[in-house]
């Protein structure tokens, strides 16, 4: 094993390093809390092992840090990074065989946890997005950038979830809807290079959620591989029809940086991207390529003149990219004829208005258009009919 860079001190300087609370174990306690001679808590984290000897990094800690770790609001690296720490070689029965006082920055980086790694696998962010560019960082990142990051994550995940759930529905009933996998709970942000992370759905269905997130990860991998394949031919996406392929490239486009402004690249991370083998950094070139693929995949149906209709958006369809308008006035829609309800699809920019209409159940006026056999909501306004 490597020789610690620091001051070797008496083996019993910290006292007995027997775990008092194990935070993560696999075959042995790997990260745990122990106490120093004064009964004050220390955080021990396994760095490496050789034969019967295990080497741990020991940092001063407190209950607040331990609680933040356990809640998934602090990563392991953040909890370990303290001005004073120790390297301890432990033998059987937690006997301290060697002890060094070391500055944290002298601990070999390739033995430290990666930034963002949480204490247990279920606390690892399911999706993470980091903005990169000259306009990103403390004092530079704007509210619009932050909104863009959150919206990109929500829109991108929604597209992936829609296809993954469609695939699951082919083989049976799914008790989840798209929003469960796109409107994920905020986990943490980092300011240095603006990063936002999202955790698993609060109301967990462990088996189902894992399958859907795995499916979403596979779709993202497939989409990026197809997008980045060189050559003039647009490589089809295996296992997806044209409409699904278009949805996939729309989802990837949502994650890419805008063509202007200080955000030039977006790095994706988290459990959902574990299967990605290529670069996790999305560029403006990826945006152009995804736009090209969306255009190539979408057949352009004939649009008809917009119409206005008033009604109530029913809540039964929450979580999807459509709503059903009922109690229609007028019920005889120009160019459509008499109908009792209309299923409207809508784009991201209307999401808040649709959510308000669902939640309030008040009558709203929808400006819509017919495209082929589908109806699309162009705007949602307060109703002028009671």
């Amino acid at each position, binding site marked *: 094993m490597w020789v610690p860079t620091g001051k070797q001190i008496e083996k019993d300087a910290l006292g007995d390093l027997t775990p008092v609370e194990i935070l*993560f*174990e*696999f*075959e*042995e*306690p*790997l*990260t745990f809390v122990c106490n120093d001679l004064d009964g004050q808590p220390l955080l021990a*984290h*396994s*760095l*490496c*092992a050789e*034969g*019967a000897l*295990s080497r741990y990094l020991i940092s001063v800690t407190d209950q607040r840090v331990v609680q933040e770790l356990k809640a998934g609001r602090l990563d*392991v690296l953040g909890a370990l990074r303290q001005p004073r720490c120790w390297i301890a070689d*432990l*033998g*059987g*029965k*937690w006997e301290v065989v060697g002890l060094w006082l070391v500055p944290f920055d002298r601990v*070999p980086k*390739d*033995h*430290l*946890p*990666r930034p*963002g*790694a949480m*204490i*247990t*696998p279920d606390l*690892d962010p399911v999706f993470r997005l980091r903005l990169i560019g000259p306009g990103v960082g403390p004092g530079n990142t704007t509210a619009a950038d932050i909104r863009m990051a959150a919206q990109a994550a929500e829109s991108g995940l929604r597209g992936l979830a829609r296809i993954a759930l469609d695939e699951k529905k082919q083989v049976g009933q799914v008790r989840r809807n798209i929003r469960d996998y796109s409107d994920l709970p905020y986990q943490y942000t980092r300011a240095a290079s603006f990063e936002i992370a999202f955790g698993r759905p609060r109301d967990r269905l462990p088996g189902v959620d*894992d399958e859907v997130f*795995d499916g979403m990860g596979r779709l993202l991998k497939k989409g990026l591989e197809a997008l980045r394949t060189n050559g003039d031919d647009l490589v089809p996406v295996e296992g997806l029809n044209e409409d699904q392929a278009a949805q996939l490239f729309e989802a990837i486009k949502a994650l890419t940086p805008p063509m202007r402004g200080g955000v030039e690249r977006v790095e994706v991370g988290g*459990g959902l991207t*574990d*299967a*990605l*083998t290529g670069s*996790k950094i999305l560029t403006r070139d990826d945006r152009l390529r995804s736009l090209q693929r969306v255009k190539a995949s979408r057949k352009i149906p004939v649009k008809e003149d917009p119409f206005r209709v008033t009604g109530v958006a029913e809540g039964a369809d929450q979580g999807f990219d459509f709503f059903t308008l009922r109690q229609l006035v007028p019920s005889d829609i120009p160019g459509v004829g008499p109908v009792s309800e209309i299923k409207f699809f809508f784009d991201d920019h209307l999401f808040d208005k649709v959510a308000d209409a669902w939640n309030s159940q008040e009558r709203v006026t929808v400006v819509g258009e017919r495209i082929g056999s589908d109806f699309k909501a162009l705007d949602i306004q307060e109703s002028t009919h009671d």
Partner: protein
Amino acid sequence: MSTQSNAPRFPKWFVPGCPPSDAVDASGTIFRFVASVPSVPAEYLSYHETGERPNAPACQRCGLSVFRKVEDVRRLLRHLWKNYPGKSYGPHIVKRELSPDDGRIKATGSPGHQTWWAYEGVERHISFEFVETVQNN
């Protein structure tokens, strides 16, 4: 599998009371991660036999870590790589079918993790098939 007598028994070096009484007859598919394929017998020795991990629970050190679901293995491997990059885990996943003649098994430690205690004479590395190599990226 080969046994030295008709009545299967556990090795004499198992610690007293091991495996625990609530361990059940081994059966079904198990997954495990290893460093090399094809299987190397040394990778299927228990920590009790190799002398490693002296602070692991004594009875678990007599068995082998296995999983029932391949997804659990993938997820754990990626977690271990992120948090403990100085330690060596995987990267290959292998699987085999167990039968009651192979020993006993019980859920131990973290969710999804099980310990398989093999009867004396069971060649543990035999019959494991390669499943996949998990990418560390």
